């Protein structure tokens, strides 16, 4: 796969917005990989957490937004607890989720949820889920 990396992309409006909404400097990450090593949801992800940061660093925001990884982050904060550079990756994931939903709409169709399961779930699960998957 050919990827073109340009100064324009690296300094694009999208990258600036992601940094603003997350409050994070994506260039702070030097890819030690601790976030990916400790992520309990990593096995479900198509890209590892540090690969998502790498895409944003390179201005490849579209590819980061297409990845399912941002939807498998449960904001458990394990990566942030272990990051030697203090990068708050859960905040970055949140900014990417918000951006993805602004561009493409909600990630969850409530009408499609399994009604039987809904009857079992604690409402805490819904409130949190709807907050993460809908705008």
């Amino acid at each position, binding site marked *: 796969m050919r990827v073109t990396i340009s100064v324009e992309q690296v300094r694009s409006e999208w990258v600036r917005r992601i940094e603003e909404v997350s409050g994070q400097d994506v260039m702070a990450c030097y890819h030690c990989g601790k976030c990916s090593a400790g992520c309990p949801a990593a096995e479900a992800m198509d890209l590892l957490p540090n690969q998502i940061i790498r895409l944003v660093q390179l201005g490849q925001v579209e590819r980061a937004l297409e990845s399912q990884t941002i939807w498998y982050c*449960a904001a458990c904060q394990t990566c942030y607890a272990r990051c030697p550079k203090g990068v708050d990756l859960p905040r970055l994931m949140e900014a990417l989720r918000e951006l993805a939903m602004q561009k493409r709409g909600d990630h969850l169709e409530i009408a499609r949820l399994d009604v039987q399961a809904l009857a079992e*779930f*604690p409402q*805490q*699960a819904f*409130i949190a889920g709807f907050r993460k998957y809908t705008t």
Partner: protein
Amino acid sequence: MRYFYFPGCTLETKAVGFNRSAKEAAGALGVELVTLPEWNCCGATFPLSTDNVLDLAGPARNLVSTAEAGGDTLAVACATCFNVLRRTNHFLRKHPDTLEKLNAFLERPQPYAGQVEVRHLLDIFVHDVGLEAIRRRAVPGLGGLRVAAYYGCMLLRPADEIALDDPERPGIMDALLAALGAEVVDYPHRGECCGAYLTVKSPEASMPMSYRILSAAGRAGAQVLATACPLCQFNLDWLQARLRQQYASYQPLPVMYFTQLMGLAFGLDPAGYGFEQHYVDPRPALAQAGVLGGIRSP
């Protein structure tokens, strides 16, 4: 000792046994929990984007209400509510501009100044009551019941804001359970995520996360697993109902609230602790360990 108490939505419905056992166990230790008047939902997740001020209004309103009622502490049983309320408080203390906006939005007679302390019941029991007093009260005790203390995310991280325990090697729940007469088991994954709300849309992702925790605790010899979070309780418990259907040989591990174990250790009547609502009924394991015998009325 008297504190304002925040139950939260799930403790009024799916986790009534957590609510009831929390209040009764506190009462047995001389801790009076006064339910915060007109409390409202904490929001169930702490908003992580810097421009999301409105989602702080819900949790902030509870902090204002506590201050208005003359309280200096808000005691919380649910680990998630505790996390959201505590992080909100921490954020408002550090961001006076946001605090001012929210005060203007909430239109309460007294503006909030960050003076309330949000504390988890584990903190209050271990540090205000003290392990020695708990040990003295723990009659009949848990008789060496092997318990895996499970912390999950919300009691631990982010550590600088939550400041309850070491995020990589937590021990506060272990210390409490040991004081109750449990034999706490050492096991990995005690601070790892159960999958949380991923279960709503992506159970295929959350179930392996929950399974790793259960499996590690089971292999370490636990007879029950203790938690402080209704969503962890649900995820870890619900998964096992499916595992039992799939594998006849599956050995279930009851998932209990730490306050239910406190009630039992103190000899309180567990009627109303909601054991029948658990997918894995903890009563056979408790009876086998001799913990359900010798129950007396409160």
